[in-house]
């Protein structure tokens, strides 16, 4: 179970990278990507996946 970032929607603001408790998100060129191996969907840490909650673009950061 992991989240993913839809590349063509990402505006590269980096909010998700900053909020991710697992350091699963890194910059790749001008946008950000989630490492599914590290993503836990924030289970047991926060009530809701932080990347999706902070992402300013609708339907950009979604369940993989």
């Amino acid at each position, binding site marked *: 179970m992991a989240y993913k970032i839809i590349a063509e929607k990402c505006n590269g*603001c*980096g*909010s998700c990278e900053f909020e991710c408790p697992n350091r699963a998100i890194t910059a790749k060129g001008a946008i950000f990507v989630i490492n599914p191996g590290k993503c836990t969907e924030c289970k047991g840490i926060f009530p809701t996946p*932080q990347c999706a909650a*902070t992402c*300013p673009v609708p339907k950009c950061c979604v369940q993989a």
Partner: protein
Amino acid sequence: MTQNIVSLASIGRFNNKKPVTGCAASGNTSCGSAAGPDDLSAEVWQKVQDHPCYSEDAHHYFARMHIAVAPACNIQCHYCNRKYDCSNESRPGVVSEKLAPEEALRKVLAVAAEVPQLSVVGIAGPGDALAQAEKTFRTFELIHAALPHVKLCLSTNGLALPDHVERIAQMGIDHVTITINMVDPEIGAQIYPWIFYRHRRWEGLEAAQILHERQMQGLEALTAKGILVKVNSVLIPGINDGHLMAVNTAVRARGAFLHNIMPLISDPAHGTHFGLIGQRGPTPAELRQVQDKLGADAKLMRHCRQCRADAVGLLGEDRGAEFALNKLGEVKPFDPHQREIYLTVVEQERADRQKAKEAAQMAQTNETPVLVAVATKGGGRINLHFGHANEFQIYEVTSAGARFIGHRRTDKYCVGGQSDGNAFDTTLKALDGVACVLCAKIGDSPREKLAAAGIEASDHYAFEYIEASAITWYATKARNEATAASA
């Protein structure tokens, strides 16, 4: 001296450093040498007199730069869409390149070496300066270490502000701007669809309530520490236009020293929610009505240009593109001597400009107030070709003198929120209600087109001081009319 933001050639004596005498030499601006506003305390005026964003007088002479190190944001506003790389747009929240703190320092050093007018470096986004506060503070530390004379400021929506007031004070950041569009969550819910706070997304009334409380808390904490706080409000017709007096009362009560009303910029092409649903921005008259109601505060900020989050230069001018990272070669060292020379020249220019204004006022005749548009690239002088003007400064001229009341953009983007394909029509729209355009030069064709629209154009006052010229033009016109009437 190589390239400068203000054409220093237009300030004739830049290279002949003359001794400065009189009150300008003492740096005491309260005696009228720099036209300090009457309603600011001497202490506050001392802090803002060289800050182009806070002082109408200073904006003729001093430059600011915004560094785009803060792309992330913790709230969503219906008037904002943080797209990058849209260099044609001039509005807040837009930048062409994001910078890491070290890159930002390099850019600031490059600008400081070229531009002796640089007095302020601000972080205004393109997201929120405090959403990832560490990055903002790290950038300020680097800049302060390299250029201790540069003033630092930041702009925030206030949500994260209460958590960072201590640090802001410690770092010596002496100006903070908070964008406050409401003090009533019912109104806030129509402006902010959501906020991200304490690890979750909040929507509707709850979101607006939290944001409001955090804004008030942050404002109070900053002013309690003696930090100057300006409040920006976006005027959104039909949503908060009737509410901004209440905002004004609330923020003044908590110690904000300025309240700046900015028009909503709304265009479907920008992709903002308000743009897409057809929420219009205010007309210049509506904006002025609200600004007039707020009286002295808003008057101080009529020169606000709603800069991009990576703007470089004097207000109304943006040289950001020239200082793109990939264009920076080896960065020249900053030369404090050049800046000292510039400061001396400015002291004298300010004093002379004030004297010229007073002398022109003496020679007044009877009158009705008229609007005069001025093409200028800074220095308080009429020094720009009509065709090169991306905006005009608007002065209201009466027998009491010439009073700066605002600026109007002529570029195709963001003319009161509406774009227009025809450049001259856009210019004419910007000059609505104006009796005369004062510029350094104007071609015959535009002069005739303006005349057809009932607008006089004059290059008679090329390179002269703005206020003195406007007053002289007005007095001459009044005299001619009186002569014609008696003949």
